[in-house]
């Protein structure tokens, strides 16, 4: 261990002044941490021994493995938007009037086949590039729910009930557009606090692109880890038998599945299969599960707080939850 401190890992052609004084930088901390982890590997694996903790670890790792491609490709796409797509493109592509830009952006969500982890950094990039926040938010909410992959999964999960996928698409688009318009009326620009990103104005496009990728992977990825840990915890500590007692009450079942969607934080490409297996619940309450899940859940709240700031996330998430619950129930009553 002493060896590590002898090596000056920060050595660089022209070491900056403040670095010289601060000998132990993050790289040394990381190196020491990794050495410790490898040394105590056996003990660490031993800790993860109980069935419950083991299940927690499996679920935690699997949420991250499942989300990693969507996160990474979403980050790459958002870096392309932030660096290579000129500002003028968005002014031309979206209707001038914000009230019209909202539904247009919501519908544009059809074109992003992925789940919700990728759409948060993309929405952040859109705002940065001058897209009106209301439209970017409508896109953020609609994209994970109404893209072709998710709707196809919903059709497969509910064989013989294609109206479920239709209801899901309609209700999700409604909620997204409504939230966009609501933001136009009530939202305050200062709630959204996008972090200062000087590297995006780098003169070298290549360097700006990779810097944006690095930043977003570390940032959104870190919040994804928090969300995955929360979801794994809920997955392990809430026994499904609790749900059974709620299924018989029409009102309670809707609220229960809406809350469950927030807590479980399942990827929007998979949630239809989970909804299908909750067969003791009414179709309407399962529709609400599918509408709420891609828009509000623990990992999304965590990522939104990171990308847009806490003041935004703690207003936006509850409002979206109420809108999704209400509209999901309404559409379910009409279509299902």
């Amino acid at each position, binding site marked *: 261990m002493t060896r590590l401190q002898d090596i000056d890992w920060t050595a660089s052609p022209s070491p900056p002044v403040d670095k010289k004084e601060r000998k132990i930088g993050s790289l040394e901390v990381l190196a020491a941490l990794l050495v410790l982890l490898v040394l105590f590997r056996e003990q660490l694996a031993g800790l993860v021994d109980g069935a419950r903790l083991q299940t927690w670890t499996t679920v935690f790792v699997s949420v991250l493995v499942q989300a990693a491609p969507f996160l990474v490709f979403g980050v790459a796409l958002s870096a392309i938007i932030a660096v290579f797509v000129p500002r003028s493109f968005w002014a031309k592509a979206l209707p001038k009037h914000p009230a019209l830009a909202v539904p247009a952006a919501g519908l544009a969500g059809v074109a992003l086949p992925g789940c919700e982890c990728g759409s948060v950094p993309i929405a952040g990039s859109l705002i940065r590039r001058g897209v009106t926040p209301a439209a970017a938010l409508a896109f953020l909410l609609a994209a994970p729910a109404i893209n072709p992959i998710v709707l196809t999964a919903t059709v497969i999960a509910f064989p013989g009930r294609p109206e479920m996928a239709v209801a899901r698409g309609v209700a999700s688009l409604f909620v997204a557009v409504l939230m966009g318009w609501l933001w136009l009326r009530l939202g305050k620009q200062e709630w959204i606090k996008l972090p200062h990103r000087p590297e995006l104005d780098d003169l070298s496009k290549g360097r700006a692109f990779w810097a944006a990728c690095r930043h977003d992977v570390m940032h959104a990825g870190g919040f994804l*880890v928090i969300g995955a840990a929360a979801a794994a915890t809920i997955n392990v500590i809430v026994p499904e038998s609790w749900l059974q007692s709620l299924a018989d009450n029409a009102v309670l079942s809707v609220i229960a599945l809406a809350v469950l969607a927030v807590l479980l934080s399942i990827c929007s490409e998979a949630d239809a299969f989970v909804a299908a297996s909750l067969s003791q619940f009414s179709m309407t309450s399962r529709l609400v599960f599918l509408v709420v899940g891609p828009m509000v859940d623990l990992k999304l709240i965590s990522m939104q707080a990171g990308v847009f700031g806490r003041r935004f996330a703690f207003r936006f998430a509850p409002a979206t939850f109420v809108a999704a619950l209400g509209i999901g129930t309404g559409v379910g009553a009409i279509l299902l």
Partner: protein
Amino acid sequence: MSKLTQAVVMLLFGGAILRASFTDLYLRYVKEGLRPFLIGAGLLLVAAAVMTLWYSFRSPSTETDHDHHEPRVGWLLILPVLGLLLVAPPALGSYAASQAGSVTAQSPESDYPPLPEGSPVDVGLVDYASRALYDAGKSMENRDVRLTGFITTAPDGKPMLARMVLSCCAADGRPIKIGLTGRAPIDVPADTWVAVVGAYSPEKGKDPVNNVDVAYLEVKTWEEVPEPKQPYA
């Protein structure tokens, strides 16, 4: 967290994903179809790490100006690296199976196709359950079937055969459970993988967790088997 540190973390994260997808490790957590995307994501992460290293070695002058703006939350990305490289938790087993309700067997679209040749013939747990529950075992008359799964304990203490069904990743894994009668493996501990050979049993039960019908199998013989490469149904 300096840019160099971030590059190392990204390199480890990408490397861990690549390693998991080039071995069978990823099958414990996600579906087989995700593999190309995992490889793509891993390569992109490694590329981002390499480019970060490249730029910071080539022009280190811009390096420190914004160091304190760098996201601290990124440290957490060490956790999945740790999980994949050092701990590598096992596939979901009997604990998860006992917590969640059995999946509903698929109701038939038409008549069930006859079982393939062979005695005993290998049948999936979901296939067996739907043939047993919706077809009263007609398509399996006078046939011996072999089911492979792990042992889990029912609330009444009897062993059941189970396998987890994934639709996307282990977070949505749900068990398919089959009750065992006849010469069931009583003494093996939970989570042991077994192949049981038996015949259709008209007995039916209910999964207490979600009140779904559970099919039964009349066991003739059974043997312990190693965990399959693809642990999920």
